[in-house]
């Protein structure tokens, strides 16, 4: 581990006074780190300010919102949360959160399972047509999403899946997200095969090797996959907008838009309050899994 400062080792000998050169170096290092951290703090604050303002504004009254640029509410109120939660529809935000959950849960689980199986196949087995299939996967990764929207829509319309959650999660649960497949393949390639071979010598069949050996080794990558999928699905607006038409099935992302449409004078405090709530699940999940997430995206850190 490298230390954060560039200071020369202060315990050089314990007793000897530092030399002039050392003093100079220390002073230089101190000045340099002061500048660096000030700069980082300022830029960090600038980037996070809209978020802070969002949280602050969600406790303001609608009248105060545009009268004061400060993020700190003068007389804090949770009226925005109460009214926002009720919404102008017959449903509360609870319904919308549940709807989001019904999309996210099968999608995340399905993605994790299907990506593991597909990536395992690509990374560890030789089969006819493997190259062509892999190129196809990568090609779909490069394809802009919008290009497939219309054919997909027509397809799901013919199957009769419109206005249901199915079009939103079934493709992903069948390893439709090439990005995740690719990510898991790359991670798997960095893991030596010895462990799997040892398992085969120990008598495990392909499926047992996958479940008992490969999946535990893949855990950091899978956690990242789940996290990404969770956050992206939570924030997905276009998908539900296209496929879901009845309000009772709206997920949170659509429901936020709903409150803008429904009232003439926008109740911004309600919208912002609900936005804060909409952010919360992603944030909580992210911070809870942060450690694994970082392990996962820095795929080099595999312990053998």
């Amino acid at each position, binding site marked *: 581990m490298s230390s954060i400062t560039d200071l020369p080792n202060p315990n050089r000998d314990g007793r000897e006074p530092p030399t002039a050169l050392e003093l100079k170096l220390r002073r230089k290092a101190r000045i340099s780190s002061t500048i660096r951290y000030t700069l980082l703090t300022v830029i960090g604050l600038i980037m996070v300010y809209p978020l802070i303002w969002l949280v602050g504004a969600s406790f303001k009254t609608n009248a105060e919102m545009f009268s004061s640029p400060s993020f700190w509410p003068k007389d804090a109120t949770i009226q925005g949360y109460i009214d926002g939660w009720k919404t102008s529809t017959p449903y509360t935000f609870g319904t919308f959160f549940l709807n989001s959950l019904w999309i996210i849960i099968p999608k995340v689980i399905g993605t994790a399972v299907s990506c593991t199986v597909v990536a395992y196949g690509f990374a560890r087995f030789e089969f006819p047509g493997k190259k062509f299939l892999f190129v196809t996967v990568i090609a779909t990764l490069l394809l802009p999403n919008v290009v497939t929207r219309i054919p997909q829509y027509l397809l799901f319309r013919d199957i009769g899946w419109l206005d249901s959650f199915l079009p939103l999660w079934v493709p992903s649960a069948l390893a439709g997200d090439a990005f995740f497949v690719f990510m898991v393949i790359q991670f798997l390639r960095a893991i030596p095969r010895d462990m799997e*071979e040892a398992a085969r010598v120990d008598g495990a069949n392909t499926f*047992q090797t996958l479940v008992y050996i490969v999946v535990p*080794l893949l855990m950091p990558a899978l956690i990242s996959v789940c996290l990404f999928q969770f956050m992206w699905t939570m924030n997905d607006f276009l998908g539900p907008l296209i496929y879901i038409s009845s309000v009772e099935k709206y997920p949170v992302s659509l429901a936020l838009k709903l409150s803008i449409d429904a009232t003439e004078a926008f109740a911004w405090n309600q919208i912002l309050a609900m936005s804060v709530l909409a952010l919360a699940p992603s944030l909580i999940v992210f911070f809870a899994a942060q450690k694994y997430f970082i392990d996962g995206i820095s795929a080099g850190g595999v312990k053998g």
Partner: protein
Amino acid sequence: MADLQLRSVEKTYGNGFKAVHGINLDIEEGEFMVLVGPSGCAKSTTLRMIAGLETITGGEIRIGDQVVNELAPGKRGIAMVFQNYALYPHMKVRKNLSFGLTLAGKPKSEIEEKTAEVSEILEIEELLDRLPKQLSGGQAQRVALGRALIKHPEVFLFDEPLSNLDAKLRASMRVRITDLHKRLRSEGRPATVVYVTHDQVEAMTMGDRICVMKDGHIMQVADPATLYDKPANDFVAGFIGMPEMNFVECSFARDGNVPVLSAGDQQIKVLDGLADRLTTSESTVKLGIRPQHLDIVPAGTENAFTGEITNLEFMGHEVNVYARIGGGTFVCVVPSEDYDSSLKRGDLVGLKPEGQHIHIFDVQSGQNVSLGS
């Protein structure tokens, strides 16, 4: 326990590269067979074919009386120890040991009993609840050994198991493994072992027999003493022994019945029955003599090569003397107590081969033609 037979075993990779060229090898029940050779000689590939981790593209492998070509690794009755241990990183040592038995659906009591037995033999009882990343190299290797041992396999396969350890640990693990092999034999359940290494010290000290390989061919299979004293060809002769055997190309003639070897303008008449052993009539041959079988004599002595000393290496118990002979350099190992300390670089000395240890190789085929018929 079972014997192991390789019959014309071949391995050709998908890109057409032929790694193993139809090798035949019989390993007896309870035998400790070492496969040794330089890197790329296909010794690991051969082992992996025995294990079932590589497909066999030709020939037949038998374990006991069963052809195992198409059997899954787990069904071959083998256990394998890998070079980098290949412990399951997410399982504790106890689980690592018992994984195979659990998969086989053995009852819990039996698993516990065997785990206890194996961990006692390998002295890893106090490590059972650790994760592999909390183990040192030597401990990890012992656990890997235990994972193989616990299954009571018919054949043990070792793939360079000690090459990741430091020299000291390697020596002690070497002893541990051979002891274990002896112990199993004395307990009446002898284990057939195939052990791959590139280290000739491991090969010589551990193997009942050694199989020397080169480029997918077997060069010689013999016990260590035979390999050292009667190498079948110049490759084996050069590969086994430290420092390497000295070679020099000589023209060969007979003076009556006494073979005369001439390297450049130096002539050596060899008595000691070499003539009876020779099975060649070529006029050019390759002479091979181990550094340990050269005596330092005054320059100009009859039947000795004369050369200029180019380097002296003091090793403690012995001294390596390097001397330029004709086109090449000869190494001569002299025990310290016999060493004349007045020798220095640039001195001319005579190097007299001990006649009975001279090997003559065919220049083209490399075959040893001095083994007698």
